[in-house]
């Protein structure tokens, strides 16, 4: 084989390798989700299951502040009470209310956020409106529950915490925010 032919063989191998690495970039997406699932992080949108019997620690009070936000959709979204006082290990249910102020049907997805960050590891949610998308008809009002428990293993220096939800609009062009961006 001449040098030029050998060169072409090497080039072909490297090209195939490059294309494979381009694919690998995309393969990282499911891989990332799998790793998060196995490692137990980022399962914000799934119900937790309680495997063991957890004792309520009545000697301790926790204040859970409830927060609600909307982002780019014509909804009014608020918790029915601003905060709840609970014991660790106690199962509680809180209600949120959402109202579609527009005269079109809008689908939204709530994304939770916790403060302090370590609350995420100790918060067990059995039911939440954030596990599925919410579709509201024009001017519909809906009350939605969140059922949760905070594990007694929560470090003792944490006594006040915040559970926050933000609704984002879900529709085919919601991802295309590029065109809507305005220079400030």
């Amino acid at each position, binding site marked *: 084989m001449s040098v030029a032919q050998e060169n072409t063989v090497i080039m072909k191998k490297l090209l195939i390798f490059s294309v494979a*690495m381009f694919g690998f970039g995309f393969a990282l997406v499911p891989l990332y989700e799998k790793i998060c699932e196995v*490692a137990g992080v980022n399962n914000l949108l799934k119900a937790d299951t309680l495997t063991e019997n957890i004792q309520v620690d009545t000697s301790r009070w926790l204040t859970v502040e409830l927060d609600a936000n909307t982002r780019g959709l014509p909804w009014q979204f608020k918790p029915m009470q601003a905060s709840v006082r609970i014991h660790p290990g106690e199962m509680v249910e809180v209600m949120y209310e959402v109202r579609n102020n527009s005269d079109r049907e809008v689908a939204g997805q709530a994304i939770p956020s916790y403060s302090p960050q370590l609350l995420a590891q100790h918060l067990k949610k059995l039911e939440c409106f954030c596990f599925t998308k919410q579709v509201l008809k024009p001017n519909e009002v809906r009350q939605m529950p969140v059922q949760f428990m905070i594990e007694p293993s929560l470090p003792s220096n944490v006594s006040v915490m915040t559970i926050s939800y933000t609704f984002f609009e879900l529709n085919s062009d919601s*991802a295309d925010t*590029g065109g809507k961006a305005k220079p400030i």
Partner: protein
Amino acid sequence: MAAVHDDHAHGHGHGHEHGHDDHAHGPPKGMMRWLTTTNHKDIGTMYLWFSFSMFIVGGLMAFGIRAELFQPGMQLMTPEFFNSLTTNHGLIMVFGAIMPAFVGFANWQVPMMIGAPDMAFARMNNWSFWLLPPAALLLVSAFFVPGGAGAGGWTFYPPLSIQMGMGMDMMIFAVHILGASSIMGSINIITTILNMRAPGMTLMKMPLFVWTWLITAYLLVLVMPVLAGTVTMLLTDRHFGTNFFNAAGGGDPIMFQHIFWFFGHPEVYIMILPAFGIISEILPTFSRKPLFGYSSMVYATASIAILSCIVWAHHMFTVGMPVTAQLFFMYATMLIAVPTGVKVFNWTATMWQGSMSFETPMLFAIGFIFLFTIGGFSGVVCAVIPVDIQVQETYYVIAHFHYVLVSGSLFALFGGVYYWLPKWTGHMYDESLGKLHFWLSMVFFNVTFFVQHFLGLAGMPRRVPDYALQFADFNMISSIGAFGFGLSQLVFLTVVVKCICGGKKAEAKPWDGATTLEWDLPSPAPYHSWVTPPVVK
């Protein structure tokens, strides 16, 4: 490395396919020479001038940044424009200045150093260069579209990068083109090194510059396609309704950071490994001793490259990761200090008891070792998770990576230019101007960036156009240093232009300690070199 060769360029058998149609005459004249050239030296020259002009463009952006930061308060520009400047300064310096400059060196030097007549794929070589100007044009013209140029940082982090205007799309396309160019360039370099070495030039006899480029090129074909994939996902998130990174649609912005830094960390080493190679050529020459620990240098380079692929998450210790993962990335990052340390000690040992002389290339090489090591140490500091949480997104990080990229990569590039200018132009450069350039760069670089360590430790955040009053003094010092550093580069331009236009005639081997093959060629290197391959003993 002694070589037996025949530098009579025309008398040879027809063993080589490339450059076969024009080896009997010189280059065509005028513009067409540069547009159509397939000659590795012409293409190398174009790469180097392109990267120098991008260095000026990126440098002007740095001027803008430092002018705004000269005093607290908003003086010269809107915050959005400031953000565009920081974003594009980073992007242009990384993809427009440093990387093409090293590819330019590879084009000039790799064939001459391994005894090959040209690059393996001469036509593709031309194409990979001519992809660069359109990409640069896209980046620069993004400043003039509605909404301005991309302003979310050179790292394209969502959600900002999925919200911005069309400037961001231009940035994405520019990265696609630059990536394609890099991949083609790397394929060319790998093939040339693997398959076109002169008889007797075994892998372990290759000059270290060639070794570092071989490993760098492999890193490029490994991670550049991943970057292309990442920005493609951004593009489809922006315009085609996918939700890879869009939290509203169930995507994950943190995942972007993981994928981006899977590219981004090896990229850091892509920009420094060829610099290691250049330094490893300069030091033995001016110490008049063989490089200390050649094979350990090769293994250290390979180890750095492999380790660089498993440390990416140290860029994102604060995003929320399991502690086990953080510890893994912390220890892996610290481990890189071991092969890097091997290199620094080998360089020091090369100089030890050598018959040293201090021409400009050697000054830059020593400056490199001194300052790069400072940058390496601040890197180890940043690798420690609790410290990193403190200094994340502060000027400490800015100081760290400018110590490795400016006084690392850029100083090595300057050193390399001075070292090989006599071979490229056939003239000696002006030694006293060269030394002036070195000392000005050395002083102003430290004035600019050393104080940024203090700013960072005191908590000044990066990418913000205004700052609290207590940071005012150090910022003013830093800005003065930056203006000085920028202006010093005009000295460099003067030296290079003077050297091209004339000067003392350079001998074939102007440095008496040099040993690699390119010094066996006459100066300036003939348009077609090693048409008959040398035999390396």
